[in-house]
């Protein structure tokens, strides 16, 4: 890209219920999770965007130099190692739990870092950031379970949760 931008560039896969959108986001000095969790922004700009249909997630069907992503329509975002580490550091977390999450069209498993003790009677995913971080995560397409997305971290859109299961 010709525009010079300072700061970090996060490469990520943005997954919706119909598409896989691979692109780069200029995140400034912050991790991508901060941008996703910024409640004052409903859209996010990505560059070098390559689009695949979810039913053929390996095939690229279109390219756009710049695209705006509607955060509320993202199901989850798959990020790389550095981004995942950065995201984890921003959280207060002391205990690792196994997480099983379902969203429309997807199942996600991985590790969730939370407070030392979670009382499931009072715990609510609504109390978490808009995008929940699941590390060492695997997402499956419910209709195509042989297709998986793996990432050091997957940032799950809490507004699209169907179920959020935790176990120690």
């Amino acid at each position, binding site marked *: 890209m010709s525009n010079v931008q300072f700061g970090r560039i996060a490469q990520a896969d943005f997954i919706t219920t119909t598409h896989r959108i691979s692109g780069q986001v200029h995140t400034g000095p912050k991790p991508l999770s901060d941008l996703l969790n910024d409640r004052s922004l409903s859209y996010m700009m990505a560059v070098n965007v390559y689009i695949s249909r979810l039913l053929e*997630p*390996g095939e*690229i069907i279109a390219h756009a130099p710049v695209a705006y992503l509607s955060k509320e329509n993202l199901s989850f975002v798959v990020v790389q190692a550095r981004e995942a580490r950065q995201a984890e550091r921003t959280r207060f977390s002391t205990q690792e739990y196994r997480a099983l999450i379902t969203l429309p069209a997807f199942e996600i498993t991985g590790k969730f870092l939370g407070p030392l003790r979670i009382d499931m009677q009072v715990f609510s995913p609504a109390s978490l950031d808009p995008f929940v971080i699941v590390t060492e995560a695997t997402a499956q397409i419910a209709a195509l379970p042989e297709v998986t997305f793996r990432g050091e971290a997957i940032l799950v859109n809490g507004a699209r949760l169907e179920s959020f299961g935790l176990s120690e």
Partner: protein
Amino acid sequence: MPKALIIDDEAALTTLIGRLLESAGFTVEAATSGMEGLQKAATTRPDLIVLDIMMPDIDGYEVCRRLRTDPRTARTAIAVLTARTQQIDKQVALRAGADTHLVKPFSGKALVQAVQDLLTARASQAHPLGYQVAALRLKQGVGTTTLVANLALALAEEKGQLTAVVDLVLSGGQVGNMLGLQAERSWVESWHGDRGMDELAPLLLRHSSGLFTLPAPVSPLGMVPPEMWRVARLLQVIRGWSDYVVIDTPAELSNLAPVLLESSSLVLLLLSPDESLRAVQAALAAIKKSAAETLQIMPVLNGLPADQEASRRTEIQSREQVEQALGMPVAAVLPWSPGRQPVIMSQPQSPLAAAIRTLAQQVVGLAAGSA
């Protein structure tokens, strides 16, 4: 010094990878788009291509597919280097023809090691001359073209193997027609043999199955027959590039016979039930006399009499009868099948397709044994 071509739309990254590879002893060319990469690959003939996937003009998968369909680059080592890191991305890259799938971000040391490992693996599997199969017949109309087209298609199904079919029936050969391919130019007029595969590549037509085809001239009218040294050189160049070469031949071999018998590893002698076994025995003796000792000969029976009534009109009545008369096993008995389409593709479950696949497996086994 190995040559590398880097195809990546990010110029800064191309420069970085170029420096890494240069420091590892490569000479490096770079292209910043898929189209430029395809052009440079065809002209510079690199040993290694480092290929990005996400590029705006044509994506890396498509570049990879096109590289594999061009005989000049069909064997080049291709390392995909991409930020698309999922298992499905690796599957698509390998399906498109890449040899390895490397992910971004990467460490320079790991990248250099990976491409060196790839080239070392390639070198250890140095490509031997392709296994050449000539289909011979004693008379017209016994179904040689059907056998040749279908056998070549069956061999082209072998994963990772390049198969070429050559139609040496220069006056009216039908292999191209049967495969639905038509040459604009004929190798007889356009290929002079001095620039090898570079000159031949544009004349090889690629069938959708992956089979490379050198059809006979569209019109034999006015054609000056090629000198035999050119035919020999043609087969040598194609063998040097492919894993299998299947050749359709005219019934009247005349001076083509020594070229075919010296260069082929296997002769399939196609017989119809109304063939004279005495004539076949004489032809076999003549072939054995002028062929190298290593040449293998296998009769193939194209059909057997359907019933007793039909068998009264033909000399050949059973497989065993032929085997006894010729003193060698019959490689296959091909059942009759209607239509002009290659059955390997149009009727893959038919008895003829099954018989040809079995024959192809015998060829694969013989080729492996001869390597």
